[in-house]
């Protein structure tokens, strides 16, 4: 009985300690606006921003309290913290370029500052307005209204500023970040055939512009085919005998993210080919699977019609040469 009690007491003590440490942690991190409704925080930030009550000493005013934070000081490793870099926030309004005018924030932390990230009370579009005010360039000109903007993705969801090296600039990290939301694509990348993205030889941004583009699916080029031609220029042609669905859209037959079929095909030949070809003759026949033959084995229809991406042979109309 005593033993049981001691276990309970020890358990309670540990739990109390854990709770106490949580409370202490919260107390350390607590700010006067934690309990303030987000809408009120936003209104206050709007007011502060409009008033423009900037600090008397710029970053020195901020670092008076925040210099103990390594996360804060890591800013100076990167371009955003380097006053020598033209256009850097540190070369202008310093910390307040992004976090807004200090106002009365330094008087016991009475007023909130503009913050970034998931826990921020600042709406995503307003967080992003800070970044876009400097980064509206040819790569991000279609950000407004694009898929990520519309889905309230914050710049800080993918990027880090307080660092000398933004992790998403690493290929391995990029795929991890994108597939955290794009889970169907993550599954596709692991299928039997896919572009070599799974092991980071290629990355999502080789084909897509995550900051928005004028093309479908935020592709870097203006169409699916032009995107494919960027690496597969041999398929660009023009060839004498084009294969109409190939000229129309590579995605008519391929899923570029991956497939359970070989060659990222959306279906296997001969069935894939028979989704369009029912000419009077062999293409109309049912191809059974019981015995290997020229129609269902080897390269299937491509045993003879091997130039499915078009042929430049004068006698290649049937895409056999």
């Amino acid at each position, binding site marked *: 009985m005593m033993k049981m009690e001691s276990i309970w007491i020890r358990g309670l003590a540990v739990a109390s300690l854990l709770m106490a440490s949580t409370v202490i942690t919260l107390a350390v991190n607590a700010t006067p606006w934690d309990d303030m409704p987000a809408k009120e925080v936003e209104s206050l930030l709007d007011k502060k921003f409009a008033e*423009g009550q900037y600090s008397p000493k710029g970053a*020195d005013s901020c670092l008076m309290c925040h210099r103990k934070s390594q996360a804060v000081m890591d800013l*100076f490793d990167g*371009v955003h913290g380097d006053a020598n870099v033209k256009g850097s926030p540190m070369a202008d309004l310093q910390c307040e370029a992004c976090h807004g005018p200090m106002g009365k924030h330094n008087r016991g932390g009475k007023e909130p500052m503009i913050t970034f990230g998931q826990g921020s009370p600042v709406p995503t579009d307003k967080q992003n307005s800070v970044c876009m005010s400097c980064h509206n360039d040819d790569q991000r000109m279609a950000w407004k209204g694009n898929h990520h903007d519309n889905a309230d993705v914050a710049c800080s969801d993918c990027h880090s500023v307080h660092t000398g090296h933004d992790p998403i600039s690493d290929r391995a990290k990029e795929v991890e970040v994108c597939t955290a939301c794009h889970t169907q694509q993550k599954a596709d990348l692991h299928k039997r055939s896919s572009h070599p993205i799974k*092991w980071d030889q290629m990355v999502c941004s080789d084909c897509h512009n995550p900051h928005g583009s004028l093309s479908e699916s935020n592709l870097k080029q203006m169409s699916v085919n032009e995107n494919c031609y960027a690496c597969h220029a041999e398929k660009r042609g023009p060839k004498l005998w084009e294969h109409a669905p190939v000229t129309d859209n590579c995605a008519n037959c391929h899923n570029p993210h991956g497939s359970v079929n070989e060659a990222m095909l959306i279906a*296997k030949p001969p069935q894939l080919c028979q989704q369009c070809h029912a000419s009077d003759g062999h293409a109309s026949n049912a191809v059974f699977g019981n015995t290997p033959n020229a129609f269902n*084995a080897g390269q299937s229809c491509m045993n003879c019609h091997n130039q499915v991406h078009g042929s430049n042979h004068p006698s290649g109309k049937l895409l056999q040469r």
Partner: protein
Amino acid sequence: MKKPITVTKLPLCLSALALAIASTMSYADGYGIQSANRDKLKLDAWECKRCTHTTGTKGDIGLGVAQNDGDDTHFGNTSGTDKDGTVVYVNANVNHKTNSGYRTDVDADRLGLDNGSASITTGRPGQYEIFAAYRGIARYDSNQALSPYQYQADQYQLPTQWQTGATTSQMSELSASLNANELAIKRDRYNLEGKYQGTFYKAEIGYQHEQREGKRAFSANLLTNSAMLAQQVDDSTDEVSAKLYFKGDNWLAGINAQLSEYKNDQQAVNWQSAFTPTFGAAYYGQSAVAPDNKAYRIAGHSQFSADGQQVIMHLGFTRMTQDQNYLPATINGPSPMLPAEDLTGQVDMIEMKLNYSGRVTREFSLRASYDYRDRDNKSELNAYPQVVTDSYYSGTATNLEYDRTKQQAKLGAKYRFTRATNLDVGYAYEHNNYSDLDRETLKESSLFARFNYRISSTWHLWLKAEAAERTGSDYLAVTTTASQSNPLMRKSYLADRERQRYGLYTSYSQGAFSVTANLHKQQDDYNDTLIGLTDINTQGYDLSIQYAVNADLHLNAYLNQDWRDSEQAGSSNFAGPNWFTNSEDNSTLVGAGIGYQNLMDKKLKLGLDYTYSDGQSDTEVSQGFSSPYGSYYSTQHNVNAFADYQMSETIGLRFDWIFEQYQDADWANSGLSVDSIPNVLTFGSLSHDYSAHYFGLTLSYKL
């Protein structure tokens, strides 16, 4: 004394709307640097004494040696090399900064392996930069493609003692002549770029050269016989690009241009027939390869924005050309006269886009766009003699243009009911005009709605539904084909289609714990198709969990599953459907990982990731009786582990281990020998079944 406002009801509404808009515009639309109120700003005392500024050289460089199991080169897709044995590589992550703002970054990632990469960037960020890079990309299919052919003197030749046969089983020297070929493509890409940023403009110029080498599967066809060849791939693409952009307070405008040239070192596929000629004297065959081609493109963009509204205008022009000399119509006897020496091919593409995005009120935003694309094939049309598979003359055929004009209009709106809820809806209409296809026009309307709900600061959910309908002009089977198509056939990419798509996503994140779940379903009903693809049903779900036990220990796990079922019908008697195919694909992905850092006095970091992926496909054709196809699957277990130990302040040692167990089957070749099909000489079985390891040891030095 203020004048009383007397307005009628309609102007009152308009005034209210105008007032609402105006008052909204008076709200801060964001916290952009240009909107900062600098009236009270006094920069005299902004000295930044507490700011730190690191200069000098930082980073680390590493030299690694790895032992790779290359028995089955397919493992190279994971390990990065197909070499069986020892490979050496270099890693680097170094930056050098000076007081004046000059910065140089050098990166290398497993440079020395086929998928290694390296880059150097130097300059003053924000002013000018020069970037040079190398990147390798490799794809390994198989090193067990059996073939009696050898590539010599630009020809795929058979051994001198070769005995032709009417069927593969009659080729008496076949088994003694087989060589294993590696089907793999390796790319080496080199980039050189320069950027300059002025006060109101930005200029960039870039050059890229990519070399591609390796072998791919090719089928050499003579009449009803075919032989698979390991076709040489040896080509390159060069691209030059330039950009010039100007920027003002509320506008951005610029042009960009690209010039791309593809060169194929291979001029043709010439091969010796392994078969006894069926008739005639086709002892040799010749096929075309991808012809050299060029493309250039010039495009202009402009963006105007004010008060939360933005308009983008884009105009682009692309020209693709190709003038590779033709091969003769036949190499077996005198070739008929060709109407031209080359295609003098030219395709022009014009694109135009108008894009609007704006916030009407704080809660309500609108998107609208119009997109115009035109593909105009200006290649000369001629009647070309058709010597089918280098064997017999079947008359002439004229090449086709396949022109297309696409127009698309989109309208979208998003309304925020509260800070936690919003509804996003959109409508799109696409109209296509085609030449030379079974349909002259094809149009599609689609409508979607997505409801976002942030249930709490930790719990987020969205639900999306989409419906689309595709239809078009009368379907009239083209008459330009060699044999007439069944009039009931509706080609899948031109057929009427009704599509429905649903998605449900939720994420929960509380402190160190986060979980996301996703459900999706799509139905495609080809509602006017009797012959061809009739239905596709796709559905799936996924779940992922992440948990940071503490600052040093992180755990993650995920599960994805999806299914795709499709149905199609055919007719063997050129009438109504009398055979049917059902294909059922499914795939599963399971993974778990652990990362543990700051162990052993903050010197050791460990990582372990496990992934299991499995994909299967069952195909069954029925015409009175059912005929299921054989096995089609792939199963992969991957373990990726590392231990990184900092031996001293400057020396680190990292051990990497990759293990892969992989197995696949494809009814098109599994269990087949090269002569299993009488009239097709195949590579035999290309299935994989292996367990392979990669061990890497990297010694790194911190600068």
